[in-house]
């Protein structure tokens, strides 16, 4: 089995910052595993501006923010990047099994940093009754389809939840010619940033319904309509306030949750409510030498914070490796 000082799982902003910081702290035998064909992670599909004001003192798009780190990675000998590499198993002894097209590989690491990001909460997690037709997407999937694949899979859209990705998709779909019929938020305020309400919703006169929820989804093969209902302060339905909106597409934007199945598989303690590792300090897990950083440790609002905390994880891992015989 191959041995490495440090293996990092994930090549998004967290994994790149962690590997560069570990390299700066003197670690010279680093393997970074990324399942996609490119570095940059989810930033590649976030083509809008708003990244980097804290870290670079500039306003960048997601791909530009990622590119700054991708270029730095090229100038750091000692960091080997392995793309199309999907990690399938992690043990408490820090043995990592990963798939690459045509091969199954095992590597033993002195320290591991997990930078696996988060995933979107789904329709099932917020319990929306009704049929299960096509035309229901999570907002981030819709973002990938439109920005990476160039597809616009719908014409009349309702967005459920007012998270930032949903708000940004409201603008993007509108500019591409779709009609965003409504954004539906069960709370009395947006879950996203005010700037996104201004530039993505108000700029295009998109109706934003607070204190409303989807009562039911209709449609056999494709979404046909939804019924909305108003809710009171305790989020109970107010009978008689129901109304329908015809639409062919629903985007679900109801928050993010850390992705931590691999460290759970290794036996690390996980808080089942937040899906974050239980640890005595930031970026740590209950297993010494296994670190977690970025959105897989906790979901951050800004990528700049992901970068800073992941740099700390890289430094922490470097210190740990120095103490390992």
């Amino acid at each position, binding site marked *: 089995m191959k041995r490495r000082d440090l293996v990092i799982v994930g090549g998004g902003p967290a994994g790149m910052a962690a590997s560069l910081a570990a390299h700066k702290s003197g670690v010279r035998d680093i393997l970074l595993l990324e399942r996609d064909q*490119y570095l*940059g992670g989810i930033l*590649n599909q976030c*083509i*809008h*501006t*708003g990244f980097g*004001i804290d870290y670079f003192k500039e*306003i*960048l*798009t*997601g*791909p*530009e923010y*990622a*590119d700054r780190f*991708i270029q730095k990675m090229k100038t750091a000998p000692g960091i080997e990047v392995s793309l199309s590499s999907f990690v399938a198993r992690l043990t408490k002894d820090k043995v990592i099994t990963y798939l690459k097209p045509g091969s199954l590989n095992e590597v033993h690491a002195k320290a591991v940093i997990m930078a696996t990001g988060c995933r979107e909460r789904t329709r099932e997690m917020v319990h929306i009754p009704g049929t299960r037709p096509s035309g229901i997407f999570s907002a981030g999937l819709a973002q990938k389809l439109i*920005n*990476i*694949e*160039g597809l616009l899979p719908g014409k009349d859209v309702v967005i459920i939840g007012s998270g930032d990705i949903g708000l940004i998709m409201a603008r993007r779909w509108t*500019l*591409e010619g779709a009609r965003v019929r409504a954004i539906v938020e069960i709370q009395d305020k947006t879950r996203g*940033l*005010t*700037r996104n*309400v*201004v*530039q993505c919703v108000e*700029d295009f006169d998109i109706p934003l319904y607070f204190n409303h929820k989807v009562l039911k989804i209709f449609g056999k093969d494709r979404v046909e309509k939804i019924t909305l209902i108003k809710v009171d302060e305790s989020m109970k339905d107010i009978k008689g306030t129901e109304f329908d909106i015809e639409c062919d597409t629903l985007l679900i934007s109801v928050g993010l949750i850390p992705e931590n199945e691999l460290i759970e598989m290794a036996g690390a303690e996980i808080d089942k409510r937040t899906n974050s590792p239980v640890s005595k300090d930031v970026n740590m897990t209950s297993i010494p030498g296994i670190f977690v950083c970025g959105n897989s440790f906790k979901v951050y*609002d*800004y990528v700049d914070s992901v970068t800073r905390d992941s740099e700390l994880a890289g430094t922490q891992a470097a210190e740990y490796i120095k103490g390992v015989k």
Partner: protein
Amino acid sequence: MIKKMTCIECPRGCSLSVDIENCKAVKIGGAGCPKGMAYAISEVEDPSRILTATVMTEGLDIKFLPVRTDKPIPKKELFRAVEEVKKIRVKNALRAGDTVDNNFMGLGVRLVATRSVG
């Protein structure tokens, strides 16, 4: 007239209070940085936005190249701008920051690649 607005320059989203006289911003409160001052003036006198979109590529390693305008363009031109972007094809390798169109729609702004493509 005092107009309240939220600065959209960065995620901080400062609450601005703008004193407007004859369609000009005469006094701006609440801005955390010079970008906020400039935003308030622009928002009162000629609202504008940075356009971000994707351009189709031919024969390159990614199918769609993300692009932006280097400076904001008039808000009322956004829909036309998206249609114009759709007509462009990128066939050569570019690095993030390289120019795709030097005078986009004759608006005096550059359309630049935001991702490297090869």
